[in-house]
């Protein structure tokens, strides 16, 4: 059979997001895959060098469209570490609640993309609707639906409004009530199992060798989670489980995501229960004249896709000298995806890609 070069994306119907893969195919078998990112390269890291420390927040949260909150968090942590700023206790807890809400929202968005791609349109609509309920919470808290700029160096922008924690609990209960329905129609559906079982399989050794983090690693049985390994915010003060699976295929990755969502909801309830009283904000210097001493820092958080890191360098000025984000999709989309697609079937490309949670804006930056 003849070998054909196939451009899969960015305009291909099977592609979700602005990402492209060049496939060398023979029949419907993939011989070689070359990831071709760059459709969303906006040069944020360069732009950040021209803006002051505080002006960078609107840029930072736009790097990853799906989960801007973890981006804010990692940047705020980097600035706090460089400038030695303390965060009040209550602000740490509020940050954790807020980040877990963002994780649930982001996983629901991922569930939308994944079920839509597999043809489970009903589940996709449900997931989108439930994500919208979480966006409503964010809107009440911050005024913005998608980009919030809520976490600042030194704490959070403002305290929870009165009765807000009850609203969080109510919303999460109303979403939680639908978990059996989700299970019946999607997760326990034999069609879903057949479509995902054994697809895009990697072993634990391979995942570690190729820089896998997040669900890709946890689906191979390794419970590697930054929230446990190197706790930030209030994650060391509450107890929670890290869901893992053993098989390392698309099915186990999606099941890890499902379990993580449920665990996050339980974690939010525990955090709300233990939420201490006090200040939520430590004053930082005047943002227009704020200079941070020379230094460098690497900080990381567990975003909903895995290890999200930031390498930040200051030369003593009022702007970052260099900022470099280590995003989880980077190794997933550029290294692991290329290796896993070799020998796979064309019909599984989107399936494998979304099960690894590859998000293009995060790669291109």
């Amino acid at each position, binding site marked *: 059979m003849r070998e054909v070069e196939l451009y899969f994306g960015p305009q291909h119907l099977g592609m979700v997001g602005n990402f492209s893969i060049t496939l060398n195919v023979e029949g419907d078998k993939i011989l070689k895959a070359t990831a071709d990112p760059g459709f969303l390269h906006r040069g944020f890291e360069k732009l950040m060098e021209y803006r002051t420390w505080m002006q960078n927040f609107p840029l930072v949260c736009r790097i990853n469209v799906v989960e801007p909150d973890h981006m804010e968090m990692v940047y705020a942590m980097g600035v706090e570490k460089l400038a030695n700023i303390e965060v009040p206790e209550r602000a740490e807890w509020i940050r954790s609640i807020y980040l877990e809400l963002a994780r649930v929202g982001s996983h629901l968005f991922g569930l939308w993309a994944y079920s839509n791609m597999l043809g489970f349109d009903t589940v996709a609509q449900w997931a989108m609707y439930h994500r919208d309920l979480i966006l409503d919470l964010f809107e009440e808290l911050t005024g913005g639906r998608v980009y919030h700029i809520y976490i600042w160096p030194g704490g959070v922008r403002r305290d929870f409004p009165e009765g807000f924690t009850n609203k969080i609990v109510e919303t999460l209960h109303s979403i939680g009530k639908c978990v059996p329905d989700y299970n019946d129609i999607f997760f326990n559906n034999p069609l879903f199992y057949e479509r995902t079982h054994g697809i895009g399989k990697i072993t634990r050794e391979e995942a570690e060798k190729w*820089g896998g983090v997040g669900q890709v690693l946890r689906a191979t049985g390794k419970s590697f989670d930054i929230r446990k390994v190197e706790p930030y915010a209030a994650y060391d003060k509450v107890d929670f489980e890290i869901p893992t699976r053993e098989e390392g295929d698309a099915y186990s990755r999606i099941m890890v995501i499902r379990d993580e969502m449920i665990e996050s909801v339980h974690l939010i309830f525990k955090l709300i229960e233990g939420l201490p009283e006090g200040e939520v904000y430590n004053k930082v210097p005047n943002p227009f004249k704020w200079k941070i001493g020379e230094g460098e820092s690497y900080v990381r958080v567990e975003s909903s896709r895995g*290890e999200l890191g930031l390498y930040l360098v200051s030369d003593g000025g009022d702007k970052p000298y260099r900022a470099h984000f*280590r995003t989880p999709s980077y190794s997933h989309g550029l290294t692991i995806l290329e290796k896993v697609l070799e020998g796979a079937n064309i019909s599984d490309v989107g399936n494998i890609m979304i099960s690894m949670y590859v998000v293009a804006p995060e790669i291109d930056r």
Partner: protein
Amino acid sequence: MNKKNLIKQLELTFSDNEVNTFEENVIKIYAKKEQVKTILRYLKDNGYNHLALISCVDWIKEKEFELIYILTSYNDNNETYKETGYIYLKTKISRDNPEIGTVINVFENAEPYEREIHELFGVKFSGHPRLIPLFLERDYEVPPFRKNFDTRKYVKDVFESIPVIPEEEE
């Protein structure tokens, strides 16, 4: 191997490089560029098996690029993790002729990072199998992430020369 022993071993084995500790969980190694690969392999064998990031900083006043390899471990145990922490392996290369050996055969996920640095800073990684463009589509005289790249001038040069269809007069 615990951290004190590791620092001692590093100082003994790679005696012409400088080893430094900074804060409680970071070891900084200032290496010569020829030895980066050997040290990375040594560290990988000693538990630092996760290459988190390769980054590049343009120190234009010193006329040098600084490459930073940030290593941690895939250790999921919180207690022993505190002991291992991070390693920042740093090396400086000249700005006039930036070239360094690739580390792909130590850490396979270094491949896109090196491609990115080659594209954005113009650092050549000898031995890299495909130094093809990653993000950019145009050719640049000065690689765009270098400090002497003038973004305003670039925008003026490129986008004002784009032909515009003149509006019809009524």
